[in-house]
């Protein structure tokens, strides 16, 4: 009898664990077009919205979108407020010590400088970058003066109003900005940083990581990932 009770209890626990897996909460920033942004109707939109929805469909997960400040996006993941970071986050060794990454869903891609004129001093000038990004780390080591901002929008504004000489960010983010504004242009050589963009998951969540890895792999295999990357123009293709 005792055994039966125990095994039913075990069954109930494992069943409820499977239930808990049903809803997977995806955390994003919502301020980094074309990767992720809030559209006119107030919903998360962009490359990662489409990608996340497709991955969840393939992995048969029920996904929910959450926005979170970039600064606290990793602490909130490890404390379990959402299950996945999908926010254009480059895979770096530093972050990998704290969280796990799936395989990348965009290849390592160049970052670029955006400035008001061609002849800015990229080595010794004042360079803006979003705080806590690989670009900020790169600028800090390059010898230029780093000014950090909480949001991508503020880094661009800093260049416009002369607070910074240039901004270093993902080229895919800066290109549409440069296209729209005649005063701003991409300057200097591209900089290769990071190991591509991946989904961040908790280190204690290997099952979810495996599921998402498989879903990304299937999208890589049938070419739908490349099509999506081209549609949103976020990176080079695989």
């Amino acid at each position, binding site marked *: 009898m005792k055994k039966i009770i125990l095994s039913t*209890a075990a069954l109930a*626990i494992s069943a*409820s*664990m499977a*239930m*808990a*897996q*049903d*809803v997977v*909460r995806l955390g994003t920033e*919502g*301020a980094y*077009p*074309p990767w992720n*942004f*809030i*559209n*006119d*109707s*107030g*919903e998360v*939109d*962009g490359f990662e919205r489409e990608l996340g929805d497709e991955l969840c469909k393939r992995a048969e997960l029920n996904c*929910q979108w*959450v*926005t*979170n*400040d970039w*600064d*606290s996006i990793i*602490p*909130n993941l*490890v*404390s*379990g*407020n959402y299950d996945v970071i999908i926010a254009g986050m480059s895979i770096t060794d530093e972050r990998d010590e*704290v*969280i796990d990454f799936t395989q990348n869903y965009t290849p390592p891609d160049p970052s670029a400088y955006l400035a008001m004129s061609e002849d800015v001093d990229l080595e010794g000038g004042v360079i803006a970058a979003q705080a806590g990004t690989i670009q900020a780390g790169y600028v800090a080591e390059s010898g230029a003066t780093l000014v950090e901002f909480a*949001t991508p*929008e503020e880094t*661009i*504004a800093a260049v*416009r109003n002369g607070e910074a000489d240039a901004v270093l960010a993902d080229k895919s983010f800066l290109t*549409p*900005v440069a296209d*729209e504004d005649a005063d701003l242009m991409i300057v200097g050589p591209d900089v290769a940083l990071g190991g591509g963009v991946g989904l961040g998951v*908790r*280190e*204690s*969540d290997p099952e979810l990581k495996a599921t998402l890895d498989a879903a990304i792999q299937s999208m890589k295999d049938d070419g739908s990932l490349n099509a999506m990357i081209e549609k949103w123009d976020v990176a080079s293709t695989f």
Partner: protein
Amino acid sequence: MFSYCADPDTLSGLTWLSCYLTTGKHMQFYLSFGTVLLLLAITAPSALLFGFFGAASARSRIWPVAWFGKGYIAIVRGVPDIAFFLFFVIALDQGFEWVRHQVLCPDWDQPIRQGNDFIVCAQAKLPRGNTAQWVHEVYGFFLAVLTFSIVFGAFAANVLFGAMRAVPHAQIETAEAYGMSRRQTFWRILVPQMWVYALPGLSNLWMVLVKATPLLFLLGIEDIVYWARSLGGTANPRFTEYPHGDWRMWYFLALLIFYLGFTRISEIYLERLMLKLTRGQATSGGEAQRKVTA
């Protein structure tokens, strides 16, 4: 919103503006004003309650209680707000989940802390993983209210602690001479009279609280400043039907007007409250009122 908004490219002037200002994103912006006001409406009284208990226990004759009260006031006032809001909320959430975990899942054999990760059983998660998004939002809002109450409660406690000591000692002595117990003196003499001394400090706190709401986004709640920043940022035509340049200035101007208006309304009400509290008090204000009526 309006039927003519189907194709915004063809619109101009006021019709464009009327469509632009009624997008779903703008509606969420307007709603967030409600969120902020609701937060203030709940936080202010609960912070006052925290403050009252903080001050009362700091005055206690039982030393563990007094230490607790004084420790609460000193520690919370000393920690920078932003650190408090970044880490305390996560700690609070984990604390709740840890307690639930201990109660609900006694058979759990895995460690709760695995490296950086905080893992509790599915039943202990708050809110449960499968609940709707709005439950998560309400829970986040509740955590925000609690955090704001604890932080502002400490400041309020310090104000009330000072106000309790500002009540003229003669009043307390008289009460004792009438044979009131310590408890009676506290509730009947001290508490009714302290508010007039506390109000200037409390009204300051209220103003600071009104302007502290942008800290909400650190807790994942989308407040008016978050939406103003998001809406005002450059809208690239590739990603929106309503492209525009960097309009953050205009949005922040609107917020400025809101905050100034709110401050003015608060001032009017606080002034009225002050008049009411001054009545019959042994202060210069109370004396002036007495002379007018006499």
